[in-house]
């Protein structure tokens, strides 16, 4: 029952996105212009761009992209439609479908960002599958924590400022883990070295999903 709800809500989100192409194209342009700005600012002195800097800049771009992309997930819904959902589906279905949809959206955006970034600024990654795994985990992690935060922020008056204020402290631990894990992949270290980070990320994701699942009904009611 819940699964069917989640699937149909996700389908609705995808169809909406496909018809409007508003959020996706906007974010695509955002990603490409940010990467290009980085290219222009680093390109003149390529010796400045060491591997740790390359990694940090990529994750910062991904962080801002995800905050901007996911902030829309509740703000773009108008009141009437939310009221309609409220009467026909369960809140758990709504939050799970939003998390899954945002994870898919972030995954696509992050992959495009990575490919474009590597194309423009060079690709020092030595262990590409591991690096892609860290991007996958990053997409899932960002979408789980930011979806709930965007739900909270959308209730308040100055929601876009609040979104940044609320989300950064929540996301920093995750970001530190991700940067460390992707740094290991960049240096081509043994994959066992990243196991700790991987497990911690999965554990944090599980905590956040569980808490969102329990708490969202209270948020939804207002």
């Amino acid at each position, binding site marked *: 029952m819940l699964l069917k709800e989640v699937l149909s809500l996700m389908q609705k989100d995808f169809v909406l996105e496909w018809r409007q192409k508003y959020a996706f194209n906007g974010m695509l342009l955002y990603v490409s212009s940010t990467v290009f700005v980085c290219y222009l600012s680093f390109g003149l002195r390529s010796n400045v761009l060491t591997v740790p800097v390359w990694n940090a800049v990529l994750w910062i771009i991904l962080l801002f992209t995800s905050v901007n992309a996911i902030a829309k997930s509740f703000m773009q819904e108008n009141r009437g439609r939310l009221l309609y959902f409220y009467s026909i589906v369960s809140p758990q279905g709504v939050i799970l479908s939003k998390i899954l949809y945002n994870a898919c959206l972030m995954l696509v955006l992050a992959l495009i960002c990575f490919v474009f970034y590597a194309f423009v600024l060079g690709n020092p990654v030595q262990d590409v599958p591991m690096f892609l795994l860290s991007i996958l985990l990053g997409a899932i992690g960002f979408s789980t924590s930011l979806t709930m935060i965007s739900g909270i922020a959308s209730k308040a008056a100055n929601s876009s400022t609040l979104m940044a204020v609320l989300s950064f402290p929540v996301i920093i*631990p995750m970001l530190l883990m991700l940067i460390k894990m992707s740094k290991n992949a960049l240096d081509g270290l043994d994959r066992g070295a990243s196991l700790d980070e991987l497990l911690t990320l999965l554990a944090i994701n599980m905590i956040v999903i569980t808490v969102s699942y329990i*708490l969202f009904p*209270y948020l939804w009611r207002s």
Partner: protein
Amino acid sequence: MKNWWKILAVLLLVFTVVAGLLTEVPRLAILNETIRNLYFHVPMWFGMILILLVSVVYSVKYLRNPSIKNDVIAFEAAKVGILFGVLGIVTGMEWAKFTWGEYWSNDPKQNGAAIGLLLYFAYLVLRSSFAEQQQRARISAVYNIFAFAALIPLLFILPRLTDSLHPGNGGNPGFNSYDLDNRLRLVFYPAVIGWTLLGIWIVNVKSRLELLKQRLYENH
């Protein structure tokens, strides 16, 4: 004697200050007399966690049973928890200046504590951005629980994965490995209980005051 715990708090704190500054402590290299910070810095974090736990419990209670009382206690407890966190970070920085040489040395534990405080400052900002009382209470209760869930990995899991200068991490001896001997314990445990009780006392007084203010406001 229903106020026995307040008397206990005062006695324990007087004992902590007097005994903490005057009793014998183990002589250790680098730490020297700064080891006495154990009685003031560490209890702040214990107190912060316990008082924030109180805040979360009242937030859960608010979601199950919305009443002004639960909301006020959750808010006041969060504020006192933040106060303890700030004091913890300040005492830690003071200590770090004398042992590590810098107030802030980019240590994982310091960074974790700073991020944790940011989480709760965001709680204050969130609260102030609602005008309507019931909505403010419900949404900040939701965020409070969410923030506490995010705080747990930050304080208890991440610092253990990285090396740190902090005692107890990365090969540095923790206070309990060899030097938390009975002389230190004798003052440390009363200090933890005393500071925590003081925090609960502040929460108690402040939330009663806040509830009285609201009742006065309603009657006029």
